[in-house]
């Protein structure tokens, strides 16, 4: 049963530190999404890629967030420097070619102190 994997599952860090979250999409899926979930804002789309090219990152704070896909099996989301307001659960999701269903990973729970 193919799944999206995310590492780390939990991360506690101090304000100002760099945080890197990783996602391995399901093999063969060509679209990858990054979401952030908080109690206050709900589920927000940060960025998404198709065939490794960024299609939309308008939901991402550009000054401190960056998202990349070094290859088809790895997507990264980086925060530098991190701030307490970045504390949230970050989800990666992938979708296969021509399909609308998104498959979510288990999330990375980030706490910035």
């Amino acid at each position, binding site marked *: 049963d193919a799944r*999206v994997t995310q590492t780390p599952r939990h991360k506690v860090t101090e304000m100002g530190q760099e945080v890197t979250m990783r996602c391995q999409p399901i093999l063969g899926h060509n679209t990858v999404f990054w979401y952030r979930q908080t109690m206050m804002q*709900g*589920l927000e*789309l940060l960025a*998404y890629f198709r065939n490794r090219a960024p*299609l*939309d990152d308008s939901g991402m704070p550009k000054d401190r967030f960056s998202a990349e896909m070094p290859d088809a099996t790895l997507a990264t989301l980086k925060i530098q420097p991190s701030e307490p307001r970045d504390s949230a659960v970050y*989800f990666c*999701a992938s979708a296969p070619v021509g399909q*609308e*269903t*998104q*498959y*979510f*990973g*288990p*999330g990375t729970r980030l706490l910035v102190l």
Partner: protein
Amino acid sequence: AQSVTQLDSQVPVFEEAPVELRCNYSSSVSVYLFWYVQYPNQGLQLLLKYLSGSTLVKGINGFEAEFNKSQTSFHLRKPSVHISDTAEYFCAVKTPSSASKIIFGSGTRLSIRP
């Protein structure tokens, strides 16, 4: 632009009772509609989706939803809930364009009482 509204942030029901979770959308063009479920400490997973065709859509775990274009609604129903249905449910909307983004509602927390 599309939007989706889930008016009920929480819905408590007794076990084996029926449930309806409401979802309304706004769009000037045709849409695809989805319901996703999020169990505690997990990611979202698809319950069901409407792309075209029959307006009554059946999903996993005994859930179904009906697309009502005139009322711009896509309410989720289950005739008899179980403790294991305790989760948060998200309605979502998207246009058929491959470049469009899926828009999620704010979620409805379903809590089942024994």
